[in-house]
């Protein structure tokens, strides 16, 4: 029986060595220095060991976990250097992971860069055959799709011309055509749709759409949010080598495009999916740092103030005494992590005027990197006045919470608490 999961990734991490950088001083570039270089190199022999422990490392991926089922179309987004290409390279077995494990079920084709293995001195025809064998096809199989490939590429006229006389766009068209006519179960694409002229790009998109609707699993790295929204049902958002969001595509893209968090204060007043009597409404949620400035990047362990602006529909004649506000933090799978009810602190929020702001201070935000939902509610005189589920999406970035460079893995839950370990040994 076929296993449901096409790709399963467990605790995958990748450490890259980025070398010891300060080998030559800047001034060592004169003529004399070039002449002396062979002798200077001798000096370095002792310092260079093969597995240099002093190399600087970066974690291109850290503890990545996800499962992709057969037939799912998953987009991977994130800033430059977030680790997207690294992830696809590991899944394509081009580099080894440092930790963790990935399991792939089904035939994989990865298009990390089109035009791979094209040889300038061969004709287009020869290169099509050559390229297709590199992707694992046999001669007879290539024969059967050859005409489709040529037709799709639109360079049929130049088929018996050497590739070196092609324009770069023509090369890419031919290369993409080969790739697009492979028939994998799982297709890994890294920014490959941006080839050729607009007409050809359109054709490529349609082709990928066709492949996608044919029930194939597609993992698709792109900076083009429109393409992501078009093809993908699900988005995995990487940031600094970690998954900070894994879920519904349009929502992820919206969050991603909203950019800096300061611009993301939602105008809650216009939301209608809320509960409560409505005598007082929350109008805005904003995340402030300890100095009450809007916070651009929220990080694990940071001191933040969650400010809730409100407006009363009608000014209270007599300010209510019993006012309780509550904030609930959930992860993006709607698991409640913790609540911040004002009542247990016996905080005095009474004396509500027509507008105002409640501020809840967290000395240290205790969640690991990810995207979190903030749900807010307000009770006045034991009556629910307002409640907005998912009033704010909090994107939390990584920070060194424990001063050790390490954070708990998400399998241990998403919350960071202060703790210490001691050991008392007894003989």
């Amino acid at each position, binding site marked *: 029986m076929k296993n449901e999961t096409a790709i399963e990734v467990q605790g995958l991490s990748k450490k890259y060595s980025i070398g010891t950088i300060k080998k030559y001083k800047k001034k060592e570039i004169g003529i004399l220095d070039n002449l002396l270089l062979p002798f200077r190199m001798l000096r370095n022999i002792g310092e260079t060991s093969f597995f240099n422990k002093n190399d600087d490392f970066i974690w291109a991926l850290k503890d990545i976990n996800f499962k992709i089922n057969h037939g799912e179309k998953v987009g991977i987004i994130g800033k430059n250097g977030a680790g997207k290409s690294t992830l696809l390279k590991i899944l394509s077995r*081009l580099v080894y*992971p440092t930790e963790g494990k990935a*399991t792939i079920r089904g035939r994989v084709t*990865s298009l990390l860069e089109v035009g791979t293995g094209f040889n300038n001195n061969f004709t287009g025809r020869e290169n099509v055959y050559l390229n297709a064998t*590199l992707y694992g096809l*046999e001669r007879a199989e290539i024969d059967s799709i050859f005409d489709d490939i040529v037709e799709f590429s639109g360079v049929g006229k130049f088929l018996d011309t050497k590739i070196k006389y092609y324009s770069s766009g023509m090369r890419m068209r031919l290369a993409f055509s080969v790739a697009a006519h492979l028939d994998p179960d799982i297709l890994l694409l890294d920014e490959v749709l941006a080839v050729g002229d607009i007409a050809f790009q359109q054709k490529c998109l349609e082709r990928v759409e066709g492949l996608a609707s044919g029930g194939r699993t597609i993992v698709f790295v792109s900076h083009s949010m429109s393409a992501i929204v078009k093809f993908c049902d699900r988005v995995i958002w990487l940031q600094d080598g970690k998954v900070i969001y894994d879920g519904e595509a349009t929502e992820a893209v919206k969050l991603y495009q909203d950019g800096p968090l300061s611009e993301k204060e939602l105008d809650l007043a216009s939301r209608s999916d809320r509960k409560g009597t409505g005598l007082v409404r929350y109008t805005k949620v904003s995340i402030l740092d300890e100095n009450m400035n809007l916070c651009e990047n929220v990080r694990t362990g940071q001191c933040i103030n969650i400010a809730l602006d409100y407006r009363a529909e009608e000014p209270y004649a007599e300010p209510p005494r019993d006012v309780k506000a509550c904030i609930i933090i959930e992860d993006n799978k709607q698991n409640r992590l913790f609540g911040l009810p004002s009542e247990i602190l016996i905080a005095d929020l009474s004396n509500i005027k027509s507008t105002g702001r409640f501020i809840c201070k967290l000395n240290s935000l205790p969640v690991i990197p990810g995207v979190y939902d903030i749900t807010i509610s307000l009770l006045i005189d034991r009556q629910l006045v307002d409640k907005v589920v998912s009033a704010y999406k909090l994107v939390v970035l990584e920070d060194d919470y424990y001063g050790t460079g390490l954070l708990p893995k998400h399998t241990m839950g998403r919350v960071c608490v202060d703790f210490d370990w001691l050991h008392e040994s007894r003989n």
Partner: protein
Amino acid sequence: MSNNIHDKEIVIEPPSGLVHLNLRELYEFRHMLWSMIWKSIRIQFSELYLKFFWTFARPLAMLGVFIFIKNYSGANMHVSNISYSLYLYSGLIIWFYFVESTNATAKSVEKDAALMKKIYFPRLISPLVPLVSNLYSFGISAIPLVVMIIWQGTYPGWKLLLLPLVILQCMILILGTGTMFASFSLFSKDAERFLKLVLYLGLFVSPVIYSPDKIHAKSQLVYFLNPMAGTLLAFRSCLFNDFPFPFWQWMYSLAFSLVFIIAGIRMYRRADMHFADKL
């Protein structure tokens, strides 16, 4: 489509200390291997109009030069049983096959780096490609040899059946040395220079131009430490009936080759684990 290269579960994990050779996988990628071999052969010949000529040119030119030197200086190469021209030409072609293939296998990783960064295939394919594709030039350069054999009437006997074994041994030695140096050269380009120097000097310390009989009997033991010495003599023995088979020397070459291929492939796999990131 019946392509089933990836039709199974693939588990991707950090490289383990266990170094094993996945021959099954290599077999599954045989189409790719063949296609790369054909490509490599085509590249060698695609820009040359006098394709075949250049393949013989070097050994034939060297044959001419050495025969000229020998005749005019009266130097004694101590070749017995067969004519000097046969001895020299047969030695040259297999020697050049050895040198070129070893250099090419040692450089194969560098050459295929761009491909390795984009397509998965068993890493061992890279050094196998020049090893096999150079056999083609080797075969072509053997044509004048066949003509000379017929011309001079020095026919091979039953030992011709051993020829594939000797060539296989030579290929094993090439692959072993090549993978070893391919691994070294990932650390430092110095290895490549070193290999070039050794192979260059090798021509003069191997029985290519002269016969080992020229060497003092006491020094012969040292002389035959060179694994190609046994191979060269065995190769000729397979071709020329009157040429004795250097049994012990060849056994040594074979053992040496087997040790080298095991060591070479182990090192190659290890190097791959550490350097896949740095290609």
